[in-house]
């Protein structure tokens, strides 16, 4: 690991969505605290603050496949573009479609994640690993 890219341990967390290559997921959290991950379905997981159990973020799973099949063709994205995650969540909602109608809790979870992505203007950048 190159020493020059390693940030200081004291570096302050700046909320940002990142693509996690090993986990094949995009994750966003507001605060860097201990969390509990609540699975909604194969696409969405809500990230809850462990102490308060309030929503602290969300994780979009299997993102590489989802990006290549659904987001990149629709938005004609290139490597240095950024994707607003609100668009990604809306695309996932469209994909799941009618299934959400019969599952109010699941629908509410998508709504919560979408609201956070919208309010915090969450984007994912640096998509080179996804395009590979």
């Amino acid at each position, binding site marked *: 690991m190159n020493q020059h*890219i390693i*940030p200081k*341990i004291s570096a302050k967390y700046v909320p*940002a969505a990142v693509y996690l290559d*090993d986990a094949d997921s995009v994750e966003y959290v507001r605060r*860097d605290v201990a969390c509990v991950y609540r699975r909604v379905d194969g696409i969405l997981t809500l990230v809850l603050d462990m102490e308060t159990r309030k929503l602290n973020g969300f994780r979009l799973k299997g993102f*590489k496949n989802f990006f290549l099949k659904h987001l990149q063709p629709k938005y004609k994205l290139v490597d240095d573009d950024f994707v607003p995650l609100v668009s990604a969540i809306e695309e996932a909602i469209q994909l799941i479609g009618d299934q959400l109608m019969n599952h109010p809790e699941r629908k509410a979870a998508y709504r919560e994640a979408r609201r956070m992505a919208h309010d915090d203007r969450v984007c994912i950048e640096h998509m080179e690993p996804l395009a590979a």
Partner: protein
Amino acid sequence: MAVAQKAGCRMAAKVLNVVRQLGSWLDFPATVQAPSPEDRAVLCDFVLGSADAATMARIGRRQLTFEMWSMILGVEPPVIGCARRNWKTQGELTRLAEAHALFKGIERPLADDDDGSDVLAYVLNPKFMYENSPDMVSVALKVAVPQDVVFVVYARLNKASGGPNGARGTVTHWHFVEADPAFPTLPVDFSSRYRTRLW
């Protein structure tokens, strides 16, 4: 001249030491031991994926890396002041080798695995962990883990037998999930969340 050289060498050594310490919290071992999928009494090696920890470190996220040190490797995070801040908090840390349940198949794609069928989910029941809680002494604080959660470590099995250094696969990610009310040592909805229970 010789004195100046000696002083220069000492200064360089100090600087190098600081640089090493700055990065040491991301200096993971290449592999970690876990119970074998076939026989929990036998340990096998998994590669410890470090790319995601580096990605998170770039935006200043430390929590998941502290969880890896304290609940997968079973040691305190190598950060300045950690031992000094937490010396009073007694309690054993947990290692991946101490997993008490193992599931296979995560019912969602993971990279090139279309349905997550080659993914293992090790379940642990840690009592203590380190959390990101900066103060004047250290950024890591040892705390008790709530009793209504379990810790799950995911590993992707190699397709061909025998990966790098004989590893069975790669540890890809980990997190806490809520415990099942009926089976408090297992993840909630474990029967629909995973395909099969191996042990």
